[in-house]
């Protein structure tokens, strides 16, 4: 990573941290899910961008994380956010192993359909197992303590755009750093070799199924942690979180930001939430507009927003080759 690049990251982070002084509380409440989705998408892209497996059921892990926090805070009485996050990660870790064991044996559309099926299955479980999940009314999330500090008396908006906002950013930075290390490590290189050519990878001694499973589980854990952050501002875990359109949004955001780039998904999360908010405020046909954006994106900008910055570099490289 060059010094220039490091400076850009520091600048972006400083800008993000200063938003409570720049933006109105309304826009601040939009930034909270964007930060949570950044974490979810970092995990999702390990599976999609780095391992080559496109999941259409990733919202399941987001919902699992969210419901874990809801059950732990309102039913078990565990208020510590750190324990809730650990709980969400653990639940996703345990559930993703058996599902992953089955799914990673398949690739392309078969993998996509299997993950979609598991996602829909989980969605109906949330609806039908009323005693456990609260059915369509969901489960309330009690405001958690951050680092053992009880903030229940604080005004909700002040809590969310103050301590909770910085808590989320802190977690995002840590998890982005961990993911950066993973994708640049020997394990990360083996995942990329699987994405490019699994047959060749096997002949170079890469355990294709095992490494796909590792990527699957890590991405599920990131999804769960993101879900834990996502549900606190809303205050309710409901089945909508696990609906297949949420999985579609995750794919959309990743493509929007650019799945070929480490930071693409983070940019995608912020850009998608901002864009959606603007379109929704303008027209009731916002789904139509978002659909059009997706079509234009795939046709004219397959590299996503980050692809815009890469174009120059790629052009220079092709020139060097010719």
């Amino acid at each position: 990573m060059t010094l220039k690049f490091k400076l850009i990251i520091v600048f972006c982070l400083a800008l993000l941290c200063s938003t409570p002084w720049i933006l109105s509380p309304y826009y601040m409440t939009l930034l909270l899910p964007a930060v949570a989705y950044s974490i979810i998408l970092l995990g999702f892209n390990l599976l999609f961008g780095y391992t080559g497996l496109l999941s259409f059921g990733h919202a399941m892990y987001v919902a699992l994380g969210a419901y874990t926090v809801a059950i732990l805070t309102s039913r078990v009485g565990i208020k510590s956010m750190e324990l809730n996050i650990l709980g969400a990660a653990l639940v996703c870790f345990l559930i993703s192993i058996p599902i992953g064991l089955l799914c990673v044996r398949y690739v392309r559309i078969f993998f996509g359909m299997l993950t979609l099926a598991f996602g829909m299955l989980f969605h109906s479980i949330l609806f039908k197992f009323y005693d456990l999940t609260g059915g369509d009314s969901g489960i309330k999330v009690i405001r958690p303590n951050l680092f053992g500090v009880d903030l229940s008396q604080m005004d909700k908006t002040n809590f969310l755009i103050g301590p909770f906002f910085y808590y989320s950013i802190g977690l995002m930075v840590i998890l982005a750093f961990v993911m950066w290390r993973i994708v640049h490590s020997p394990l990360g290189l083996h995942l990329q070799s699987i994405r490019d050519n699994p047959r060749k990878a096997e002949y170079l001694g890469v355990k294709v199924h095992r490494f796909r499973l590792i990527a699957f589980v890590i991405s599920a854990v990131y999804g769960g942690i993101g879900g834990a952050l996502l549900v606190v501002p809303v205050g309710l875990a409901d089945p909508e979180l696990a609906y297949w359109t949420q999985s579609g949004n995750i794919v959309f955001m990743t493509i929007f930001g650019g799945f070929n780039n480490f930071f693409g998904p983070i940019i995608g999360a912020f850009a998608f939430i901002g864009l959606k908010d603007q379109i929704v405020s303008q027209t009731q046909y916002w789904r139509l507009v978002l659909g059009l954006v997706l079509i234009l994106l795939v046709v004219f900008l397959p590299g996503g927003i980050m692809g815009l910055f890469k174009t120059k570099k790629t052009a220079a490289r092709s020139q060097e080759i010719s």
Partner: protein
Amino acid sequence: MTPILESKAVSKHYGVYKALQDVSLQFFENEIVAIVGPNGAGKTTFVNVLTGLLKPTHGEVTFHGKSIAGVGPVKLAKLGMARAFQLVQIFPQLSVQETIIAAVISQRNLQYNFWSSVDSQAELTERALEVAAIFNLDKKMTRQASYLSQGEKKLLDIASAFALSPEVILLDEPTSGISTSEKRGIMDTLMTAAKLAGIKTMLLVEHDMELVAEYSTRIVALAEGKLLADLPPNEFFNDPELQANIIGKRVNHA
């Protein structure tokens, strides 16, 4: 002398079709064995059985005396046998350096390291450079594999197999899809590379009989799934009938 690799009365049947019938062969150190035969002779099946990809219907394949029937490519790489395919197999989005390092990681059992950056590990980058230099790819370490020329892609494919430091390497038509003028260059590079990398036995599936005559130390001929001949090149090329069976026409070789 004990063989490194051995097939003992190997047969492979697909229903009623007998792709291989009772093939017994031993491969030793310091051999460059060319496997030849007309299309449909069973060469690919034999190679797939030898490399543990296919389980023989009858018989056994042993590597250092241990059975490797159907072990699969990952275990095979671990045991010390590498393979490159007829059609170029590369990682399009990875650079030359990353492609070779992917093999070195497996060979050194570093694949579960999820924390240290690949680029910061000198042992990996130095080894990648060493292997790339043998194949004249050392000036293109950062070049993405998809941007290499066809010949360079082929070399990278083989270089990554060499990076596993195997004892035995199996190359399926290493010069297919390469222009005639480049073929000798690639074969010379391969021979040098084998010496430098300490490869003990090389098996080549090859159609170009001139290359077979020039580079192999032993020729194994298959036809209709049966072993037709197992001879040194001079004896093989002095038997016109045998050649007629293999190539379908009579050729005179020096």
